[in-house]
């Protein structure tokens, strides 16, 4: 899994019927310095994430292991909203402090 920030939503009226009703979010993968790492992706949201939140996402066939994505043509799912990130003994992110600790 990798860390990403939700940067927006994606709306598609005409889509595969198996993914109808799913919330599609645009996420920007980030590294441990919270700098952009690669291009933004579209992901199905399984946890109710919102814009600006730091989330965890899984890619590939692992992404289909939720009831929301089981059997659907999906290769990226948001499966956790991050509270804290600890790196080498220091908290580098704390949601309760609104961002970087």
């Amino acid at each position: 899994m990798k860390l990403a920030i939700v940067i927006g939503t994606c709306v598609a009226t005409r889509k595969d019927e198996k993914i109808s009703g799913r919330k599609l979010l645009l996420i920007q993968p980030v590294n441990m310095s919270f700098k952009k790492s690669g291009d933004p992706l579209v992901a199905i949201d399984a946890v109710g994430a919102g814009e600006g939140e730091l989330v965890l996402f899984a890619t590939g066939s692992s992404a289909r292991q939720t009831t929301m994505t089981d059997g659907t043509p999906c290769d990226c799912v948001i499966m956790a909203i991050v509270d804290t990130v600890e790196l080498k003994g220091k908290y580098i992110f704390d949601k309760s402090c609104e961002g970087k600790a």
Partner: protein
Amino acid sequence: MNPGIIVGRVVATQKYHTLTGLKMLLVQPTDWHRNPKGDALVAIDLVGAGSAEFVFYVSAREAAFAAPEVPPVDAAVMGIIDEVDLPDERQ
């Protein structure tokens, strides 16, 4: 399976229900000489690895089979490395 070093941990309260109770660690991928390689990733841990330990992890869908409920994860720490015997070091 690839080697890595545990550099931290990630806590999330709001998560997909099959992830409940699983420890999530930050793993810095390395080569077999413990030199960092690429960006850190988040992996679930079922072997009880701790900070700064040298481990090997599995990526992609197979990672989910380590957990009891097949959660939506694509990386899992599978073992804590005690010793590596590399052929180039034997010479």
